């Protein structure tokens, strides 16, 4: 079977890769968006925290024999706690300054984290075994679907939409949205805004680590795995605009798919296609697809 002269198996597998990358873009840009909403900081070490999630899972498995399912919950918690410490000890001192200082501080932190992991583990990369329950695959007729990859997409979508539900439909989410609009007013109404900020940063960081654990069996667990990814995610954020949670999710998934398709039809451009789309969006709709101003 062929479509546009491309075998459907190839098309299907690239669509799958695109969806998986898109899921990671979605989780990461979602985390960036909720952090930015409340803290007005772009978390440059988001990629490093994603990498930490993958490494915590890998260390847990190889050194302590802790399995994938525990790591899937435990690694985001551990990295989230590190995030809480970063917020309490450092980011907190910067809220009254220009927002750019937050970007610079987290950039420095990203250098530190990546440098330490590179010194400890080298840059060759480690592999993480696919958990036993998710090995093998299903033949869908037009393509072969490895079960783990299907699981990554499902798990990402659950987390993304769960986050969306929490922010848009629960009381906690209402506080968060109110804090994004006007944090002083929310503070005046008796809500503990500093605690809310700490929780939000920790949650955003935990999301990044969760994506890292999901990614561990697919990609090599490598100290630099996050640093190139995060720049693409920045472009995703510029394209989508950080105003809307659902917007971040949809933009992430959509761009992953576009990237996957570019790999099929014009592979040379696949590494830059997201940036090209960013340029076009800036020319046509500078505020971003889902941006407000």
């Amino acid at each position, binding site marked *: 079977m062929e479509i546009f002269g491309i075998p459907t198996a190839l098309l299907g597998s690239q669509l799958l890769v695109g969806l998986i990358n898109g899921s990671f873009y979605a989780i990461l840009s979602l985390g960036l968006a909720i952090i930015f909403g409340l803290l007005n900081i772009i978390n440059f070490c988001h990629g490093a925290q994603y990498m930490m999630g993958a490494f915590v899972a890998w260390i847990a498995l190889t050194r302590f024999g802790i399995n994938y399912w525990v790591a899937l919950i435990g690694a985001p918690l551990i990295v989230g706690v590190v995030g809480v410490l970063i917020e309490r000890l450092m980011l907190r001192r*910067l809220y009254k300054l220009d927002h750019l200082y937050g*970007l610079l501080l987290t950039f420095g932190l990203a250098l530190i984290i990546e440098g330490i992991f590179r010194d400890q583990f080298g840059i060759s990369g480690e592999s993480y075994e696919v958990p036993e329950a998710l090995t093998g695959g299903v033949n869908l007729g037009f393509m072969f679907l490895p079960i783990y990859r299907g699981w990554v997409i499902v798990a990402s979508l659950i987390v993304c939409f769960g986050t969306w539900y929490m922010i848009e439909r629960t009381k906690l989410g209402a506080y968060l949205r109110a804090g994004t609009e006007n944090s002083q007013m929310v503070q005046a109404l008796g809500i503990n805004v500093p605690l809310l900020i700490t929780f939000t940063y920790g949650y955003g960081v935990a999301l990044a680590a969760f994506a890292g654990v999901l990614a561990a069996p697919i990609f090599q667990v490598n100290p630099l795995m996050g640093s*190139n990814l995060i720049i693409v995610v*920045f472009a995703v*954020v*510029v394209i989508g605009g950080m105003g809307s949670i659902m917007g971040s999710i949809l933009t992430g998934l959509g761009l992953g798919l576009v990237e996957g398709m570019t790999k099929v039809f014009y592979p040379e451009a696949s590494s830059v296609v997201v940036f090209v789309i960013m340029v076009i969006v*800036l020319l046509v709709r500078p505020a971003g697809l889902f941006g407000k101003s």
Partner: protein
Amino acid sequence: MNSKSYLETKLPLLFGVLFVIGLVAPFAVYPTFLMKILCYALFACAFNLLLGFAGLLSFGHAAFLGTAGYVCGMMVRDVGVTPEVGILAGTVAAGLLGWLFGTLAIRRTGIYFAMITLALAQMVFFLALQIKETGGEDGLQGVPRGHLFGVVDLSDNLAMYYLVFAIFCVGFFVIYRTIHSPFGQILKAIRENEPRAVSLGYDVNKFKLIAFVISAALAGTAGATKTLVFQLASLSDVHWHASGEVVLMTLLGGLGTILGPIVGAATIVSLQTQLADSVGSWVTVIMGVIFVICVLSFRRGIVGELQVLIKRSGVN
């Protein structure tokens, strides 16, 4: 008033002293090392024009440094032009790229501006990695230094040093004049209060774009010169690490001060050279730690802190 004028009256004297130090330095210190410092100092000064005086944080300045390096390298090695034409070509190429980046990036402000410049620079990085002409991961190797104006042999390190020093002085003068011109005053006004500058009738985006192009072009001058010095246009110059380094140099030296970027560049380059032998891969960690310290508790930078000290002692 008194303290400020005190600083300003001493400035020409300070420049004079620094100029003389620059002239005799190669007899005391290894010239290649000095040339590296001067290239990065010009790079950082160009960057500081944008961040320190126009308030625009570009996280993509490596694109200008690297692209100019490639263009200069190709012109000198493959086309066979003289070095000064190569540097000029690199500068023009970086300026054009800066115009392109600037046109796109000034459509957004603040944090988005930084992210857009970073993303565009990453695109340049991927292109440099893939295109055959740039040599991929190897970069452009074996770029000859050639003869300046077809006469002066630059393979002599001392001759090369004085060329780099001259280029640095010209670049520094351009930046100094830009900052102290009416144009520079308007940039500062935009940095301090953009809506007010708009209401005064200034076409803010035009001023930002011009500043961006000047900054990019001079970053290009630094990159092209660096290529000649090391006879190599390397992929690492286009990498976002280089963009981060120039931010660090400027921040450490003193954001928005005239001499800060030079001090910052000299400090960071010396540190990297010293540390590379002793601690190896920990250099990145140390750079990160300096970054964090600067942001948390040393935001004025070295020169900024010195200025405060001098002002205080001037008052007393």
